[in-house]
């Protein structure tokens, strides 16, 4: 207890350097915390008892070390007082033998101090402590290896999990206000998966285009098409009793939805100024959706939708009535109507002109 009291006094003493105090706290603290040491902590209770013993030894070594610091400071002050070294015994209130000897033997000449063998032990105690703390985990690992690799890997895993825990994801979202649900009557009869590679998007801006940057993208999307049957009424249905055939006239097929499954960016240009890479992805996505819809219309998705709708509704009518079914389609006005998902909003702050050129919105 007396030693612990002395230790506490020395830790609070201003004459002891902060470096010494921090060294002690960090090194000894690490030894206590790390599960792998001289006797690994999994081997209870010895794994904890050895930590306590090491702490006591470390305290003793620390006190030896700091006695040297106080001594050196006394030498310095002695040099200023014509080689007569004095200290204030009462203010330190230290009771350990080492430090008491130091203080009660004063006044001393500077030569006496230098001859004192105590000074040579100060650095040794510090190094000895450090060496012990480095070597003991190695001995601990050897013990664990001998006792089985499973224990070792478990111990190493727990150490690594403490230092470098597994990646964790945190997601927080705001509340949504769903405004309304709308009724539809779309018979979606065809789905196509499309892909576009090498969508190159470049933004040219800045003084002499110094802020220009570009990147390439690969986009994969899905386009669906079908028929809107919500507008059919009795006028669109006729029955021919001679041929036992129902004739159903439907509106022309249309694209019903467009979506991008994923879009990858690559080949970004070198740029010294900050670049809005997300803007490039949004522009690429906008272009991809619009182009996908147009490309699929050119590639006959609407004709395929018509064929599938004929098949589905023909089967439906036959199943319902037992009669033959003939499906006809009204002529469209030439322009395919696109749903909102195929007409994405431009990225914030940008607009597309009638010529298809992008510019910053006013």
């Amino acid at each position: 207890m007396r030693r612990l009291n002395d230790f506490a006094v020395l830790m609070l003493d201003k004459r002891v350097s902060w470096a010494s105090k921090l060294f002690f706290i960090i090194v000894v603290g690490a030894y206590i915390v790390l599960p792998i040491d001289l006797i690994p902590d999994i081997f209870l209770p010895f794994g904890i008892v050895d930590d306590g013993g090491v702490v006591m030894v470390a305290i003793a070594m620390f006190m030896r070390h700091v006695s040297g610091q106080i001594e050196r400071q006394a030498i310095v002050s002695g040099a200023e007082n014509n080689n007569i070294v004095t200290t204030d015994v009462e203010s330190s209130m230290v009771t350990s033998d080492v430090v008491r000897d130091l203080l009660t033997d004063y006044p001393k000449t500077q030569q006496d101090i230098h001859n004192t063998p105590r000074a040579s032990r100060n650095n040794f105690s510090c190094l000895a402590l450090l060496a012990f703390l480095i070597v003991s985990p190695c001995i601990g690992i050897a013990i664990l290896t001998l006792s089985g690799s499973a224990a070792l890997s478990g111990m190493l895993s727990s150490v690594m999990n403490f230092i470098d825990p597994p990646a964790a994801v945190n997601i927080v979202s705001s509340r949504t206000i769903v405004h309304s649900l709308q009724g539809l009557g779309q018979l979606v009869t065809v789905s196509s998966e499309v892909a576009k590679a090498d969508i190159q998007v470049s933004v040219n801006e800045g003084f002499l285009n110094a802020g220009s940057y570009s990147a390439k993208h690969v986009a994969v999307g899905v386009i669906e098409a079908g028929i809107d049957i919500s507008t059919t009424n009795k006028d669109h249905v006729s029955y021919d009793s001679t041929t036992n055939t129902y004739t159903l006239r439907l509106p022309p097929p249309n694209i019903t939805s467009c979506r991008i499954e994923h879009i990858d960016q690559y080949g970004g240009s070198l740029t010294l100024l900050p670049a809005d890479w997300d803007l490039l992805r949004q522009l690429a996505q906008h272009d991809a959706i619009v182009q996908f819809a147009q490309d699929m219309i050119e590639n006959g998705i609407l004709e395929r939708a018509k064929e599938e709708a004929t098949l589905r509704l023909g089967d439906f009518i036959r199943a319902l009535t037992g009669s033959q079914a003939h499906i006809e389609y009204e002529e469209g006005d030439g322009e395919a109507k696109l749903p909102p998902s195929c007409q994405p909003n431009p990225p914030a702050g940008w607009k597309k002109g009638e010529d298809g050129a992008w510019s910053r919105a006013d």
Partner: protein
Amino acid sequence: MNDGRRRNDTVKFSDGVVDWFADFANKNVKSIVTLITVAIIINFLTPITTSISNLMDRLAPPATVDVVSEQAIISSLRGIGKLVTVTSDPHARKVFVSISEGIFDSGYYSANHEVAGIVEAGVDFTKVKSSSFRYDTANDAYILIIPAPELTNCIIVKLKQTEHSLHLGLRDWELLEELARHEAIGLFMADVKEIGILDKAEEETELLLGEFVRNLIDKPVDVIFEEQKSEPDLPDTCDPKLPFGWEKDESGAWRRAS
């Protein structure tokens, strides 16, 4: 005599006016020079500013964008039969995603996302077969039994990443976006189910098919739905693939795939 006096008066008046102007000019030289200078500048200001503006437009023109892409490649084209009877208005959420990794979380990074999406629901029309129809002779009415409504499509119409955290080194921002997308789809589905999208789909389907059949055969029809599955099938769009290298545990928390 009068003419002479009048001439003298005129000369005196004109001399007086001249003297007044001369005196005024002498007293206000600086003001006059300033006014003349300003007038000249104003006169030439418009062409000067126009020239400067033209010069700046040449040196630093307004930002433009070039997009170059090739024809799309069709990887698949298949027939389906979805009767979509209800859609939600595009609704938006903000989704904040952060990843903590590395020694003492030194690799922490995060971003906010603005996500907007649409959810559609309807019935699988391909399951409507001849066995789905029954005729009720007592009431001279048809009974149409069709599968229970389910979600048919989940579409993300907008996904914008904002407010990146400060960081050193490279970060996988696309991963954050994928996580936000995955999370948003789940949240959108929960939102629309909460306001009864499946009930609404049932109502609309009953209305639509009932009307369609009545128009065909001019007979009343009862539309009956099969029992809702305890865990209805989800379309691929509402059940997106997990980001590569990641999985969700039983509690719904994300972790790296083992």
